[in-house]
Structure formats: structure tokens, C-alpha cells
């Protein structure tokens, strides 16, 4: 599950998930909620990213979605598949092209968190909007 936490100017996203891979699925769902629906052609985007640790992988993941939304008008809908390594992620993302409805300028490192708890995984990231 994900939820938006109150922040004066930006958007703070908190995620709880059963597995580390699910954290990325929840982040995608949250991003999809921001950019809305699209009714253009259905497409599948392949995403491959690398980073030093899981928290930075989450930043790269959202950065990639911002880039695709802004340059290709890609509005994601769901995760078709995801493979997650210690410092890499490979995913296929289903969606449509259209006019993403909400601009996200960037993914900050402020209060960035990605950790395993006794009962699952928890992540937090603040987006500049």
C-alpha cells in the first residue's frame, strides 16, 4: 500500500509492501495516480536501471517514470514484470500514451528511506512538484 503524507509544498510518498519488489510496484501505482488516465495507444515500456542501493534504485525508478511521462507522454498503468537485483532493476511497464496530468519535477533524497521491517518493507520518498 502507499499513502501521501502531508507536506507544505511537495508530495511525500510512504510505501509499505510485502517484498522489496512490491515497493516498486506500489511506487508505480502512486505515480500512476498522480499522472491520471490516458486514452492513447497502449504501449509497454522496458526499464532497466542501476544504483548503489535500494533507496537510490527507488529514486531512479521514479526518475525514469518522470522522464517517460515528460518526453513520451507515457502514462503507466501496471507492472507487467519485474526482476530486482541488489543494485539493478529490470521491469516491463504497461500503459498508454496521452497527456500526463501532473508535473513531477524531480525525486528528492530528502527523508529518503528503504528498509526491511519484521513484517515487510517500508519506503519513503519526497517528490518535488
Amino acid at each position, binding site marked *: 500500500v502507499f499513502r*501521501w503524507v*502531508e*507536506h*507544505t*509544498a*511537495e*508530495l511525500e510518498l510512504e510505501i509499505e509492501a510485502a517484498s522489496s519488489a512490491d515497493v516498486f510496484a506500489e511506487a508505480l501505482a502512486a505515480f500512476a495516480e498522480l*499522472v491520471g488516465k490516458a486514452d492513447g495507444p497502449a504501449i509497454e515500456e522496458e526499464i532497466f536501471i542501476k544504483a*548503489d542501493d535500494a533507496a*537510490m534504485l527507488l*529514486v531512479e525508478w521514479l*526518475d525514469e517514470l*518522470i*522522464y517517460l*511521462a*515528460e*518526453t*513520451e*507522454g507515457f502514462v503507466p498503468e501496471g507492472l507487467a514484470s519485474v526482476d530486482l537485483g541488489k543494485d539493478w532493476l529490470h521491469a516491463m511497464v504497461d500503459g498508454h500514451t496521452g*497527456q*500526463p*496530468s*501532473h*508535473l513531477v*519535477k*524531480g*525525486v*528528492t*533524497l*530528502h*527523508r*529518503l528511506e528503504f528498509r526491511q521491517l519484521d513484517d515487510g518493507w517500508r519506503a519513503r520518498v*519526497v517528490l*518535488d*512538484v
Partner: protein
Amino acid sequence: MSELIELSEVLWELPASTRSDMRVPARVFADRELLAAIQGDGSLEQIQNVATLPGIVEAALAMPDVHQGYGFPVGGVAATELPDGVVSPGGVGYDINCGVRLLALPLTEAELARRREPLVHEISRAVPAGAGKTKGRARRGAEIEAVLQEGPRALGGSDDLARTESGGCLPGADAAAVSDRARERGAGQLGTMGSGNHFVELQRVAHVFDDAAAEAYGLRDDQVTVLIHSGSRGLGHQVCSDYVKQMDGAMRRYGIDLPDRQLACAPASSPEGSAYLAAMAAAANFAWANRQVIADAVRSAVGRVVGDESARGTRQVYDVAHNVAKVERYDGRELLVHRKGATRAFPAGSDEIPEAYREVGQPVFIPGSMGTSSFVLAGEPGSVELAFGSTCHGAGRRLSRTGAKKEVSGAELRRELEGLGIVVRSPSNKGLAEEAPLAYKDVERVVEIVERAGLSRRVAQLVPIGVVKG
């Protein structure tokens, strides 16, 4: 409030001894009421975090419109001593050279009369707004390259350049320091407004406070003006993302440990610091070019609705940046002044401001929230004495976007604004609600504080008569 020391009625200090990691004090420009509001979010902690930056001098400063950001608060000013003081991309922000440009039309509201609504609609057609892919003209790679190096000068000569901060071109810009991904995000976005709190507003001069400065700026009672608020769009956002990550990875090498990763920084003289400053300057040049293309589109709209003579007589008053880092000299020291949600406000006599304004001080524009007044200010000597030549940049958010939407719907707000006689064009009711006036502090109080503190003084009050929102 007990740990804050009252330096004056409008200036408060948290001494450097407040925390073991602070290198300098943290100071806040505010009266007691604004200070109470400022203490309601995380901005005081954030300005103390800024006070830990290596090389920071004198104090980390918060303007009266300060509010919680990430890393730096929005409304923060920090100066580091060159060459080895740090540069922090987060201290400039994602929207590099977000700023405001004011145009003055050669007519009064009464003379504009019934053409007001058509003009607002024509401006909304001429200036693409909203998120994601936009309808800005696609630019060739060579044209983007030239804009990154030279700013609006690359788009052709214009009298506006002389009335733009830094002549619309920051020295040291290097297009090669801007990633391909940043260029891709910026391609097609030149001349577009973006979303969030960006806007183009048609206004009327409601009150002149300082006749001499208003005359120098070419402003008079009841005159129609256009205020443009936009920045470097996706290109600048990507430059910030690229370099925050790069510096996050490099900090350990420089022995830098900070309380917030988003403050990621490197010595300005280091390879990472130099590369960021070159890319930031290029993104700032892109932003000035963006506002230039928007201004040209507004002039064309004026031409179509009011006439060519009015378009030719639409003069730029000035253009100021409020998210940027600049090299400036204070007391013989060369400093890198980070202004994140703060505006340069040089006083009369400064060589850095246009000759026509040199006797009255640099113009500063403070946009209010949608539907409320904006202010034209002039830089005062106190800005140099107390705030590295800086003043505030806006009203400052009070409520989160979600909080604003709980208080008012976009449709209600649209009706309310129209009831006040303001023509509204916005692609999204949701976006409209997020920027509702109740989400912001009282801009008049913010402006009163910077005036009492001696940072800048009021020259004119502008009230909205039409809003085109991003």
C-alpha cells in the same frame, strides 16, 4: 520560541551553539505572528541544516515567506566562500532560475476595457500550459545549444536583455555539462509555462507607494501589466536531479557529512562543483530564454487583440530569478550566494542593475497567490548588510496541496475569482484548487516584513484582472 533570540522586531536568530553541527547561526526574517506560522512546519529545522554546509559564512537565512521544502527550505539564502566553500544543487532547487518577468502595457485598464477577456483568452492560446508533453515549438539541437550558452540573446537581439537580471546570461555556462536526458526533457518546452504555481497574470497598477521608483520603472496608476512566472522546465529539473545524485555519491570523498541527503554538495572548485555550476548557468540561460519566448507570445497576443502599436509599446520592466546560485562580492570576499525561493534585491548605486534604475534600486517582483495582489519592490541597502543582497520571493505556502483541496474545490474557486472580476483560464480545476489563495500566507504581511527589515521597499501594488494558470 524560547531558543530564538530576538535581534530586532523582524529578525530572529538561532545561535550556532543550538546544534553541534551548525557552523553559523540560522536567522529568520519575520514578526511574531509569521514566526509562529513558520514554526508550524519543518522550515526552522531545515534552515539549521543549511547552517551545517561547509564554507557557509555569516548565517543561514530564511525570508518571511519561508516554508518547508526538502534539504533547503523554500525562502532560504546561504552564502559559501569561494573557492572551497560548497555548492549544493538542492540549494537552488529543481526549477533552476524559476523567476518572474513584468511587462508594462502602454494603456490603462479603462482603455483596455472590453478587450480584457479576449486578451486573457488570447494569451492562454499563445502560451502553452500544463504538465508533460507541451505544444512549444520543437527546437533544433543547435538552437538549444546556443540558448544554453547565451540565453535569450541566442534568439535575437531585444531591448528586454538590458532589463533582465545578469543580462539574461550567467557567466560560465557550458552546454556540454547538460546531459542528453535534460536536453530531451527541455526540447519543445521553450516558451511554455509548465504547471504547479506557474502563471501568466494580467494586472492593473492599483497603488503606487514610491513615485520616483515607479516613474523610473515606467509604472503609473491604473496601468495594465503582465506578470510571467515560469522557469527552466524539464531541462532544469533534470540538471538538478543529475547533479544531486552525482554529489550524493561524491560527498564521502570530500569528507562531507550532512543531516539531510538532499543537501548533497561538493566544493565549488571541485570537478563536480564546477560541472554543476556550468550546467546550472546553462539551465538558468534556458529559463531566461523561456520567459523571453513567453513575453514575445504575450506581445503577439496584445498585437492581435489591442493593436500593433500597443504590442510595440509593451515594455519589459525587469526579469528576476528566485532559484539560483550566483558569484557575488561582499566585504572583499567572493561568495557563492544560493537563493532558493529568494530574490536578489540590490540597492541604488549597484553597477549590476540597469542604468535607468540605478538611482532607485533594482526592481523585485513578489507574486501574490492567485486572486490576490502582487508587489513591485525596490532593493534597499539593508539587503546587502543583512541578507547577501536578497529579499523574499512570494507569499509562501501555508497549506499542503491536499490541504488546499480539502478547503476549496477548483470549481468554487473559479466562481469566486470570476465574482471578483478576474478572468480565469486554467487547464485543471484540481490544479486551480491546489494554488488557492487560502493555501498561501498573506503576501502583504510578507512584504511589510522585508520593508521593515530594510531589505526592499514597496514601489507599487498590482491587482489581478486575468489569470492564465499552468
